[in-house]
């Protein structure tokens, strides 16, 4: 096993990777930007290297600086986390050249699967069902129109590169086609440096269900069951769970086999996720492979008992997968809520700033993967995720109840968060019913506002706080601003002399 690795990321995911390394006796090197000098991942690592300016291209996206930091500290491998350089095949190439192990799939696999067209071709060739649409990039809106008429509107114009909801347009009629193509291409060009687009069928009532896969360097490939990720805003997931409320053993068997086939067809090594769309008739279509650890990986860990980061490290250092398909089964139900610094009342706009106070929930079956603490600044330069709250219980209903109770005890003050919003979503009949499609938020919660009816307790708390504050100031005046010694503050209590 590696003796020391570098984590080329920040926030909760860097902390989470460090935690497993600590269990395994692996030394950790954090990297950080000027904006993150006191970030949690820096405070919990064994060593830390400053990369420079907050601007991501100068720090967390700067391949040379990160590889130099690994060489300088003697780290044998780099864990990329998610986002940043995690799906950058050029970075993997540079790691290979520098003799540093990249903890993830080989460069070629990332390159193939990162291009949605190549990925669609690989899957179609190996018999994995793909969404109806084009299998080559297309610049001509007229060709797009012809294809759209063939498969039926609405359709999705999609960038062949990138992800994260960028360079995607829904087109409902041929009149919208030219504009949608132009703006998707422009957005893709500016976000990913590649303006290629293609077209695929858009499913209005679709579920987003993904399968976790693990593959070692010896051709052993397994799946670790599904995750349901249909609750999304701005094409980004906010609640994930496993098992999916619609899953049946037969469908799981079929989709799991397709996921393993997909991974094998791509020559996959390490941890990855095969994403599918599932329509109302439970037909499933390959969407894409995420060639990294997913944000929502903890729900899989909760029900399978398998530490995915540990598996990633085992695979990357050349060990055989310690589990085979028959060893893998899920127990109970797990749900994850993403806690972002954002304002759910105001279109989920980011809400950077100082976290004045943070109190994390805990208890049986509650896990909080957190990258912040009381007093830390949430910089505006990066993704606004603060933490992920995960619960595990015997059934879905019990997990929902546990999540609502855990959210009620989650205190984040200073930046806006969706805690109250998530509580309302989890407690809704719509969510309880499990009828969760990717348009769930737009359908049920598009004009959400927090309940303010019961403001009386808040008023009483305000008054109590005012009273407590005036008592405190009163004390200070009597002490004439002198620094109080324990002899004054201990009151009647005296140490046993």
């Amino acid at each position: 096993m590696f003796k020391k690795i570098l984590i080329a990321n920040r926030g909760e995911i860097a902390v989470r990777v460090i935690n497993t390394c600590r269990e395994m006796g692996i030394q950790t090197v954090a990297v950080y930007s000027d904006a993150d000098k006191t970030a949690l991942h820096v405070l919990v690592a064994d060593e830390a290297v400053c990369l420079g300016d907050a601007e991501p291209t100068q720090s967390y996206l700067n391949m040379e600086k990160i590889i130099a930091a690994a060489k300088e500290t003697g780290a044998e491998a780099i864990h990329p986390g998610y986002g940043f350089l995690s799906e950058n095949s050029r970075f993997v190439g540079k790691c290979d050249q520098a003799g540093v192990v990249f903890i993830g799939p080989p460069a070629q696999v990332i390159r193939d699967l990162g291009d949605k067209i190549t990925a669609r071709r690989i899957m179609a060739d190996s018999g994995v069902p793909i969404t109806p649409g084009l299998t080559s990039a297309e610049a001509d809106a007229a060709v797009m129109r012809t294809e759209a008429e063939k498969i039926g509107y609405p359709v999705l114009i999609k960038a062949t590169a990138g992800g994260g909801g960028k360079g995607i347009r829904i087109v409902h009629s041929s009149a919208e086609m030219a504009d949608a193509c132009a703006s998707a291409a422009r957005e893709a060009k500016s976000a990913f440096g590649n303006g290629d687009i293609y077209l695929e069928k858009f499913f209005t009532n679709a579920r987003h269900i993904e399968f976790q896969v693990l593959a070692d360097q010896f051709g052993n490939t397994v799946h670790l069951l599904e995750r349901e990720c249909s609750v999304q805003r701005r094409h980004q997931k906010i609640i994930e769970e496993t098992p999916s409320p619609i899953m049946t053993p037969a469908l799981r068997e079929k989709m799991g086999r397709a996921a393993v086939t997909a991974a094998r067809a791509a020559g996959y090594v390490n941890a990855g996720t095969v994403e599918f769309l599932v329509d109302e008739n439970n037909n499933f279509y390959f969407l894409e492979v995420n060639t990294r650890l997913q944000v929502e990986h903890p729900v899989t860990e909760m029900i399978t008992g398998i530490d995915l980061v540990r598996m990633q490290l085992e695979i990357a250092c050349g060990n055989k997968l310690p589990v085979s398909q028959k060893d893998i089964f899920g127990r109970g139900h797990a749900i994850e809520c993403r806690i972002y610094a954002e304002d759910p009342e105001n279109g989920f706009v980011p809400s950077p700033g100082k976290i004045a106070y943070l109190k994390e929930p805990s208890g049986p079956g509650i896990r909080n993967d957190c990258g912040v603490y009381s007093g830390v600044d949430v910089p505006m330069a990066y993704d606004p995720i603060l933490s992920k709250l995960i619960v595990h219980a015997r059934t879905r209903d019990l997990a929902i109840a546990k999540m609502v109770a855990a959210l009620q005890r989650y205190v984040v003050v200073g930046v806006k968060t969706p805690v109250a919003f998530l509580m309302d979503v989890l407690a809704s009949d719509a969510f309880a019913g499990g009828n969760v499609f990717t348009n769930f938020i737009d359908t049920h919660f598009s004009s959400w506002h927090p309940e303010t009816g019961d403001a009386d307790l808040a008023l009483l708390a305000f008054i109590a706080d005012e009273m407590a504050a005036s008592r405190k100031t009163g004390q200070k005046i009597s002490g004439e601003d002198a620094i109080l010694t324990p002899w004054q503050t201990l009151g009647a209590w005296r140490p046993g002399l």
Partner: protein
Amino acid sequence: MEYRLNVNEEIFSVEVENSGKHGFRARIRDQEYDAEYVHVDDHQIHLKVDGRRVNAYVCGQDDGKIISIRGRCWFVSDADLAGQKGTRKKGLGPGLQEVTPPMPAVVIAVAVREGDVVEKGQGVVVVSAMKMETTLFAPYDGLVKKVNVCEGDKVMPGDILVDIEKTGPDSEIEAE
């Protein structure tokens, strides 16, 4: 003692009477409460209201306090003090009448120049924060009087990025 408190833009009159060292009686609308409190630390107040216990988390801000109870947050301020410390909060609501970013951000693009005629809803500035781009729109038909920012500038909520003089039909409404 009487407090006039503002909770999410609604004013409440609260009659308060001390009772004991850490207690008070309060009347909100026609509801009476018997409250006791323990100041746990600078951010936590443990309340006992009519025998039921609840933890409230408090974060003081320039112009009020954020109170968090059971996962929900309220912004509470003293209505009698409002205005003394400026009216920073005004104009930040959904009925936004100024071109100002909703969050601390960096200017990515400025789409207008001084002297341009803009229509209500036209994109004038694009800002970016935390990987998310937001387009700021002209709040009404008007004439661009001044552009106060350039690409790359760091901007805060309340900063007016573009001054627009109203020319639309409802310009009189603004005067009141």
